[in-house]
């Protein structure tokens, strides 16, 4: 297979980036998209160029490092996957493939396709936890949690923090990310005592860090590698509004 690649190249956070075109041939259909980029990088290095910088680590869709915006879609033209799970069989030989970094004010580009997502950590620091010290926990089975609730909490908890929701959103909103954590911890009895405080703090931090507001378009849900439901955003809204109106 062969492709024309238009890849965003940017030296560092301060410099201006631009698309650079590459032609690549000899791509096998068994490659993953990232292996295709590895292959491109090999040829770039051997010909004296700088390789394309992109983030990746576990390469099995769970660490959330990979973050490429491919042909207009976060994580490329397939559903329920991270970029590392995208296979070249999703493309036709001869295609032009446009590869961009996540673009958002809160995710500044550091180099080529690498962006800084530390804003997500800052949102978590605002309240994405249950305040229990090590050793202070009660016996695990002392608080039964119905299976339905545990499963729903799990469905929110599987967020990998990749940022595809922000990239997918026309407003660069981080609502799905925030909602996943708020919802998970609000559902579980352990997280209830701090639920309202948590919702307020995390939303305030999200706003402060320059993420946009939610338009409920559903693009985030559709592009989320883990298929986290918009219902969690509704729960976040509810938690937040309850918190506000109670005080």
């Amino acid at each position, binding site marked *: 297979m062969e492709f024309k690649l*238009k890849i965003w190249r940017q030296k560092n956070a301060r410099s201006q980036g631009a*698309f650079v075109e590459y032609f690549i041939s000899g791509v096998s259909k068994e490659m993953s998209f990232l292996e295709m980029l590895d292959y491109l990088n090999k040829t770039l290095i051997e010909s004296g160029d700088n390789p394309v910088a992109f983030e990746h680590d576990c390469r099995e869709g769970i660490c959330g490092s990979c973050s490429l*915006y491919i*042909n*207009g*879609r976060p994580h490329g033209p397939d559903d329920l996957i991270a970029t590392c799970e995208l296979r070249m069989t999703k493309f036709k030989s001869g295609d032009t493939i*446009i590869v*961009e970094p996540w*673009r*958002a*004010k*809160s995710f500044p*580009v550091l180099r080529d396709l690498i962006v800084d997502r530390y804003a997500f950590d800052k949102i978590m620091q605002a309240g994405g936890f249950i305040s229990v010290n090590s050793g202070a926990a009660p016996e695990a089975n002392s608080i039964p949690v119905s299976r339905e609730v545990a499963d729903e909490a799990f469905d929110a908890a599987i967020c990998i923090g990749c940022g595809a929701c922000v990239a*997918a959103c*026309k*407003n*660069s*909103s981080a609502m799905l990310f925030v909602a996943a954590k708020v919802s998970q911890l609000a559902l579980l009895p352990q997280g209830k005592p701090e639920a309202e405080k948590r919702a307020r703090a995390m*939303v*305030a931090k*999200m*706003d402060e860090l*320059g*993420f*946009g*507001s*939610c*338009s*409920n*378009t*559903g*693009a985030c849900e*559709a*592009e989320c590698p883990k298929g986290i*439901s*918009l*219902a969690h*955003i*509704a*729960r*976040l*809204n*509810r*938690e*937040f*509004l*309850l918190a*506000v109106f109670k005080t």
Partner: protein
Amino acid sequence: MSSFINTSIGKKFLISITGLFLISFLAVHLTGNLFLLAGQESFNLVAHFMATDRVISFMEPLLAVGFLLHIVFTAYLTITNQFKRPQKFAKVDHRQTSSWPSQNMFVLGGLIFIFLVLHLSNFWYQMQFGEMDYILYGDIWVQDAYSLVTGKFIIWWYVLIYVAGAVFLGLHLLHGFKSAFFSLGLYNKVWGGRLMLIGAIYSIIITVGFSLIPVYFLIGHLTG
């Protein structure tokens, strides 16, 4: 309260509340308009009732405020959201992930706003400040709103504009209806599908209802 309005969810709350208010107004408006199909006297009496009823008169300025807040806050959020992504994506493909109306609510809202200005100047302004004919029903003189309306709806491009307005409104509601419930947190897995369905049905009723009237009079004019 000001800190609440300063948050993104706070603004969405106001947009939702005002949106739902406007949605309920549309139902009243459509019901009134449907009396056009019942004939001149019925409609004129309904219009007269609307113009003189205390509750309706009380709601009128509220409606104006509702519109204003809805527009101001959406405009504010839409414009500020533009700055959340200083460098745009070179290619965006939303086709498979979200509906066209949901991605274009502000555009639809803008088109509806233009339509609204036209609509208000045609009818509302005319009835408030213009020269109107009066008809005597029983012992009260009533504005002949019927003739004003039907007089416009025999012009084909007027009808076209009104049908377009109704379609824009329907598309706006298609996303807006369920989105309002979403933003208020009134959504879960059970009600998600139902809300979508109710919203879709409501949008269709509004679009068809508001389109039906001008088309009815145009066809009547052309064939009669």
